[in-house]
């Protein structure tokens, strides 16, 4: 069954924008969605897969390499042709073992055929694609360490059981979770380009519409998909256009200055905030068909790009969203 169409998600505009922007420019670096249960977090992530354009990869390559020379030698890829496959969106389940994430000695082959072979893990499958972690705040610390290391270097290195394996592992992290159930380490927070907070819609009519669509999806699947799939296709075309236009979007000195002053006012750590903010604003401009980043783009992009980067006292409970909004009003009138 095809996942619920992205276009049919009611409301949650900030979350949808963030997903679209990260699809336009993967360099923005993924999305973190925090919010209550049953607000459509995982629905949106699964729907995102349908919006992503397919990638060209060498046939049979376990790490989706674009060219034959990029294929790791342990994979013993013999094909030379490339084929088009959907952008991988790989689930990283909670309670996953380290072996499953990084890959390990292929026990089955070792035991039955006496061969020493490498069984690729989730990181290999996620290369050039998206890695989705539901309930990311409940992820065990040692897996988080591992992800941080790989995300930093873009390479997965496995050194154990007499094997020395390395392969490219460049992926965009998408996470979702419920902040009431635990906190996320600042290092991991920083790895996400954008972060959005979702809540259940408050208006009865919106809620009714959400449920009506979900019910139609489950009980009247064919008609529902006939109505919404074309809209998903249109959105995907728009994303592709924006991707093409991205390189041509200009960012003036004023825009750069605006980005920097917002970040300075908020006291966000490092320069990653500025970079992400600029990239996000540029992707937004490309999506809206503008050829230059304006202050309006920056203003719209700032909350999602900066919300999770503020220096945070672990005991401070003030919402960071409010702080960003306040500073924005002052710095970018």
């Amino acid at each position, binding site marked *: *069954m095809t996942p619920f169409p992205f276009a049919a998600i009611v409301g949650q505009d900030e979350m949808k924008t963030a997903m679209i922007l990260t699809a336009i420019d993967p360099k923005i670096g993924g999305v973190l969605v925090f919010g*209550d*249960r*049953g*607000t*459509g977090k*995982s629905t949106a992530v699964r729907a995102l897969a349908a919006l992503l354009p397919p990638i060209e990869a060498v046939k049979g390559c376990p790490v989706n390499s674009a060219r034959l020379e990029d294929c790791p030698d342990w994979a013993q890829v013999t094909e030379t042709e490339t084929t088009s496959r959907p952008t991988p969106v790989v*689930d990283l*389940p*909670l*309670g*996953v*073992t*380290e*072996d499953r994430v990084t890959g*390990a*000695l292929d*026990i*089955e082959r*070792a*035991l*039955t*055929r*006496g061969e020493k072979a490498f069984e690729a893990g989730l990181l290999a499958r996620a290369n050039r694609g998206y890695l989705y972690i*539901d*309930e990311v*705040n*409940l*992820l*065990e*610390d*040692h897996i988080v360490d591992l992800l941080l290391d790989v995300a930093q270097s873009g390479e997965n290195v496995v050194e154990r*059981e*007499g094997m020395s394996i390395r392969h490219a592992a460049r992926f965009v992290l998408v996470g979702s979770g*419920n902040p*009431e*159930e*635990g*906190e996320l380490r600042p290092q991991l927070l920083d790895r996400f380009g954008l972060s959005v907070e979702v*809540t*259940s819609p*408050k208006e*009865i009519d919106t*809620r*009714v519409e*959400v*449920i*009506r669509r*979900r*019910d139609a999806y*489950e*009980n009247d699947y064919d008609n529902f998909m006939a109505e919404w799939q074309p809209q998903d296709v249109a959105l995907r075309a728009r994303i592709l256009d924006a991707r093409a236009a991205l390189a041509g979007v200009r960012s003036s000195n004023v825009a750069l200055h605006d980005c920097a002053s917002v970040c300075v006012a908020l006291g966000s750590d490092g320069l990653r905030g500025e970079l992400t903010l600029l990239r996000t604003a540029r992707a937004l401009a490309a999506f809206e068909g503008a050829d230059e980043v304006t202050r309006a783009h920056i203003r719209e992009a700032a909350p999602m790009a900066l919300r999770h980067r503020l220096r945070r006292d*672990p*005991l401070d*409970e003030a*919402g960071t969203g409010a702080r960003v909004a306040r500073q924005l009003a002052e710095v970018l009138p």
Partner: protein
Amino acid sequence: MPEADPWEQVTLAITLLAIDPKGLRGLWLRGRAGPVRDRVLSGLGLLVPRKLHPFTSDEALLGGMDLSATLATGELHRHAGLLEHAGCLMLTMAERCPPGLAVRLGQALDSDPRLSLVALDEAAEDGEGLPNALADRLGLFLDLDGFAWSDTADMSISPSLITSAQARLRHIETGTALERLTRVAAELAISSLRAPLLALACARAHAAWRGGAEIEDQDLQVAVALVMAHKALAFPEDAPDQEDAPPPEPPQDQPDQSQNRDQSELDIPDEMLIEAARAALPPGLLAQLQAARVARQAASANSGAGAKRKSMRRGRPMPSRAGKPGSGARVDVIATLRQAAPWQKMRRAMMPGRAMDRLLLMPSDIRIKRYQEQTDRVLIFVVDASGSAALARLAEAKGAVELMLAEAYSSRDHVALVTFRGNKAELSLPPTRSLVQTKRRLAGLPGGGATPLTHALEVALATAEQARRHGMTPTLALLTDGRGNIALDGSANRVQAGEDASRLAKIIAARAIPALVIDTSLRPKPQLAELSAEMGATMIALPRADARSLSSTLSAALGG
């Protein structure tokens, strides 16, 4: 709602689940194991559930290699996982379900419409319950508490009636049911949007069951009673009562409730359906579920600075030993080969048919790796908010706790908060890693009243024991001025209080629960030093401790 026979309601729920497991997604069955529950389970026989338990391994869930068959034949054999079969799963001891498994099951339910789940929740203590990830997804809820054997009867559900109801299911007219259920969900402050959807499925199944062509009031009443009532956070009339229940997120709840108020003024609430929800709930159940929900929210993932325990997956390596792979254990290839090597010649003679150039392994050769890891530590703060403490140094005590919280944050500890004043102590916050919640509770802590030190020790001991049962390592931090004046039975008897406290302190020492006592009084008294000695605790006098010395003493005491 008409006074229905409660047992009929139970039978009805099981019938509806049998009709539409796909729409209802499952059943949350609360109640201890016993003949009554067995009767309900026998009714579930139509669904032919397959069992899993909270520590079911990934391999059992998702499938994996069948080791004995593989080794016996020399060819790869796979066994299918529980989640690969369509149908109904039954999770026993669901209250012990770790978050990882809950999320997996939740994802499986989301992605595979053919699956449904019956969760058997045997919660015995406050703060235990079904993980929220599952509670949110399962449609039906039944509470078997209070059913006597004589109230019940054998469940006779006719398979042919079920089949004919299933045939009608697709043709039921929904009418305005959807709008009404959504509205009721909002009235009951249920924020998850899964609830109305599940209730709609329930109403539809009920309409099909009684042979109707469209959803009517009675169907909606049943749906609200079975699906929504237990998820309610508030009833329109008694919204102020919410103050009593521990609110999980006050800043967000407030607008929510005021919204509901506005709504109920604008539209007349669906009284009939709200009544149905109210009637479905035995008194006290909601508060209990709420407590479990909060505790579950507080619980979170593993690893920390606690004691060591053995593990198959991570930590410092230990010698490998015989065992079966799976359940996350890793095969130690070298040790396995070493074990198998001496027997090769003999085995070849015994198994002449096998290829000569291959190693012959037997399941008993397999060696698995073992590691030693650290478990979570939970810091239980026992904070004195009595009049004598409040007058002098409650603020300093709070400061000291915050200092320790910062310490806990850096070592990824869980924290729990026991406060005591007046005539009793209470667990204000079950073990959590959310420091924000702890801080919030602490800030709102009022002072005044007598000093029920003994009761505080009792609550702290119970919390520590419970944490230990959950695999965590508890440490107590007691902040008091030491003048306990309320005995365990609640009487204001200073002598009895002293004896009780000393007895409890000795129990704490005997259970080897590490403890730290911080004397917050202006002039430290010998009684508290004695108590601390009996507890085997490190003692610090706050008046003479500045932030830095407190912090270093703490690190020494806790760093262990």
